[in-house]
Structures are given as C-alpha cells and as structure tokens.
C-alpha cells in the first residue's frame, strides 16, 4: 500500500523532472502522472529552432526506483549510520520536490528495558531522521513523528539479530 504510494510520488517527481525540472510549474495532482491536454480541441503547429534545454546530472537508482524506507540503528543509539545519510537525503529531496507529500516517521526500540523509556528511545530516532529531513529541504508540516517503542517489533525473537531489526525508523508516506 505505502509502497504503491511511494512509487506514485516517485513517478510524480520524475515527471516533473522530465518536463524541464522547473519548480515554477504547479503539478495539478501529484498522483496524476500523465497530463494530456489534447482534449482542448486546439491543434498547433511548430518547428525546430535548434535551441536546447539545460543539461543536468542524474542518478541511476539501481534498486529499481523505490527508496528503502526503513533505517536501522545501533544499540542505545539514535545516530544515523553513514550508509543511511544518503538514503535520508533522497527522502528529503522527494519531500522538497513534493510539498503536498507528507510522511510519518515511526520510531521503534528493541524490547530491552522499560516500555515507556523505550518510547523515548524510539522518538529520539524519529527526531534524528526528522532533523535531517528538515535541514535538507522538507518542511515541518510534511513530517509527523510517532514512537511505538517496543510495542510493534518487526522481529519477534530475542536474539541480537532480532533486536537489530527492531531498532529502526520506518518512513511512511501518508498521502
């Protein structure tokens, strides 16, 4: 569900980029990826005057177009790992390019220790991601945070590996 929405947002981003990358063109509907104005009835002619658009660097997303939306953390830490900095940057770009997109950052902790304190640890992780998104162009109205602490584990066991899968922030696009 959220993956589908993510793809839709991505496609919207790509379609904006494809029509010149100008940020002055309002997107009538970010989920509407095909814009067809042939229904106006008018038909105009034109010719090639040899002018060129501006070139730009692009990144080839080798993962197939969809951004990973789970970020994992070390034990007792709310610091982003180096590998995840770029991932968060790309989510920030996505939000900056789509002012109507909003995300919910869901922070989680492993099961060790007290439940309400773990809510605090999960929130700290959400806030790390939130600050990174804000610094890189997302606006605060696009971001909600919630911490589930240890209440919604991704892995049910009690091994170190399970714990490492549970210390996470999930970035969920909610419209």
């Amino acid at each position: 569900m959220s993956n589908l929405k993510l793809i839709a947002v991505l496609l919207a981003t790509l379609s904006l980029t494809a029509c010149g990358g100008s940020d002055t063109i309002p997107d009538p509907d970010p989920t509407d990826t095909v814009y067809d104005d042939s229904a106006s009835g008018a038909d105009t002619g034109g010719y090639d005057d040899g002018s060129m658009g501006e070139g730009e660097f692009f990144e080839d997303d080798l993962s197939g177009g969809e951004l990973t939306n789970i970020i994992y953390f070390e034990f007792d830490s709310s610091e982003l790992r180096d590998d995840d900095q770029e991932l968060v940057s790309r989510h920030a770009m996505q939000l900056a390019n789509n002012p109507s997109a909003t995300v919910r950052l869901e922070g989680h902790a492993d099961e060790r220790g007290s439940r309400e304190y773990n809510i605090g640890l999960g929130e700290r992780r959400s806030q790390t991601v939130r600050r990174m998104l804000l610094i890189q162009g997302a606006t605060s109205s696009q971001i909600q945070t919630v911490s589930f602490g240890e209440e919604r584990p991704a892995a049910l066991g009690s091994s170190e590996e399970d714990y490492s899968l549970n210390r996470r922030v999930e970035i969920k696009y909610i419209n």
Partner: protein
Amino acid sequence: MLKKLLIATSLLLMAQANAEITIQITEGGAKRTPVAVVPFGWEGQSSDAPLDVSALISADLYRSGRFDPLPEGDMLQKPTTGADIDFDDWSILGVEAVVVGKVMQTGANAYMVQFQLFDPLRQTQLVAYRMPASRGTIRHVSHRLADMIYEKLTGIKGVFATKVAFVTAERNSSGSVYRLVVADQDGENENVVMESKDPIMSPAWSPDSRRLAYVSFEGNKSSIWVQTLRTGNRINVSSKPGINGAPSFSPDGRKLAITLGGVDGNLDIYVLDINAREFKRLTTNRAIDTEGSWSPDGKHIYFTSDRSGGPQIYRMSANGGTPERVTFEGSYNARPRLSEDGKKLAMVHNDRGNYRIAVMDLARKDLLVLSTGNQDESPSFAPNSDILIYATRTGRNGVLESVSADGLIRQKLESGQGDVREPVWSPFPRF
C-alpha cells in the same frame, strides 16, 4: 468515530472471558502456618449455597504462601459456629487457627455470610464478622472475609479482594489484537475493557479503583484516555502532537502525571488537571524525562531521566522545581513505583545485563533485586505494600509473576492469552 469506539468498548465490557489465568506458586520460602477452614454451613432454599465460600477462603490463604490449610478429610469435626467447636480436636492436629462460618439466605437473591476465627491453643475468638451478599457479590464478599482473616493472623492487610489490570497482545494472520483486561487478584472474573488493533500501553488505576488511564495508539498516534470501568465510557484527556504517555493518577484522583514529547520530541513530565484540562510542565531538560509516579502523600513525583547519560530515577516536588537523583547503583534504573506506605521504591534495574525488578528501601537506600528473569518489567505494588506484581518472559510470551517484598514467596500467573504485560495492582476497594 468516537461514538463507534464507545459502543465497541461498552460491548467489550460485557464480554467476559473465561478465567484464563491460573496461579502457580513457584517459590514458598516462608514457613506456612497450619490453619483449618471448616466447610461453611448453608441455610437456604436450594440444595447448595451460591458459592463454596470456605473453599475460596482456603484457596486465598494457601495462595498467599503463608498458610497451609488442613485437608477436609483430616478434620475430626465440622462445626459451623463457635459454640460447636471442640478446641482439643483442633489443637491435637497442630492447627494454629480455625475458621468456621455459614451462608444464610435472607431473600430471593440476598444472603448473609458470616465467619468466626479462633485460636484453638488459647481457646479464644479472634474475630467474628458477617456481611450481606448477592449472587453477584458473594465472591467479592468472600475475598473480603479472607482479607480480614489474613490481616488478623499476619498483621498485614490482605489483598484478596483487589484486582489487577494488564495488557495482552495476540498476533494472528490479520495482524495484532491488543486488549486491556481487568481480573480479580486470583485470576477469576476476567473482563476485557478495551480492545484495539493498535498498541495499548501503561494502564494506571485511579485511587478509587473506578477508572483506568491508559495510552492508546489508535490512528497511529499516541493519546491518553481515562475510562470508567462500570460504564465503559472513556474520555480522551491528551492527544497532543508527538508523544502522549505514561499516565499516573495523583493520590486525590484529580490529576495525572503524564509525559508529553511535542513536535520536537523532547519528553518531559507534565501534570494534567483532568477536569480543567490544564497542562503544567514540570521538567524542561533536553533528556528523556518520563514515567512520572506520585508519592502516596502527593508531595513528590518520581520519574525516569537519562540526563546523566543512562536512565536513572529522580524525585522532584509535585509542583516542579529542581529534581534530585535517587538511584546510583547500576547503569539502568527506570519505571519507578512507590509502595503505598511510601517506604519502598520498585524499579526496573539492569543487574549484570539482565533487566530485573528491584526494590529500594528509601530510608536505608539499599537495593534488593527480587526477580530472576532477564527481561522483567513493569513492577507494581499491591496496596498492602507487601507484594509486587511484574511481567517476565516464558519463551516468547510475557507472563505475570508476583513476589513478596522480602523475595521469599513467588507466584507465576499463567495465562492462555498470548503475550501478557504491564500488570498494575488496584488500590484497596472502597465501599
């Protein structure tokens, strides 16, 4: 939406599960006193009394870990009033206390339950008491009588007539179901008071035992609710942006200590006046400040803070002000809960890598580790300050255990309900 939820909760209030908790005593380090609870007499229209009161009292006394009730087959006589007791028949069996009594029908659904407690060695009556009951109340009345017997014999108030609230989580193919459950202290009479597909956390009793505050994640955000148990009606008392958590009632029942995180996620302790809906901020530290809990005299709030690095327990005036650190032993102390007599502080304590329940004597400042698991949490004192209940693990599931404050008597409360967590012991019932 709210109305729908209200209907759902009130329907659930009526859905009474079969007793799914069975209690098993795993350690009985204390010496058990031999007692006799003689089968009660019955004076009524039908063939049997509405409840086997003496069996319930006997089970209560046995479960406390402090008494060893004599089997019925070993009794030489079965008197139902004090006048019929032959004290020699009991002292020869080494019994140190004898309970006799009867249930008398006084109306279509009205009964009088009476008991007398004797010391057969001194041949004296220690107490005689009777209470009216109906079919609906006779179980509770019988627990109250057991409480009186327990207090007379030990000097400690009984808690057989109290309740325990806890949260269960069950996973199935379509997701998770979280339930907030209230049961009698002996595991009977289970009632689901709230059910949700989103997590439920941190139940807290009001001082009059009539309401529960709790945290719900319905709608994928946290909010604090206060629910009246009798009606199932509930009110949303806090749904600020960010974290709404860790409610704890003030001793007068008018306020809640809560944790708010705000948009920036800086968890601090607030006091919420429930009726006026006024929030007063008590801490401002950048650290995590959470799990506020009132001292029984209402003057202080104990809370968890990691302002010194790891989580430790602090204490401040209930009006705010500079907190003082309370715990210094070990790298992790969290979730403070005071005993009702104000003398003991229970917490989750990291004991050489294991998260265990520890109790600090506030006068002597020494810490006693009471549990033996590696993932123990959520300690809560019984209102007699003598027993604690907490959650531990068996395999992947959370189960409940109780332990006497001296660590000698331990009970495991088995439940068929998947993962059980966050037990909280009710205050004494009020009438």
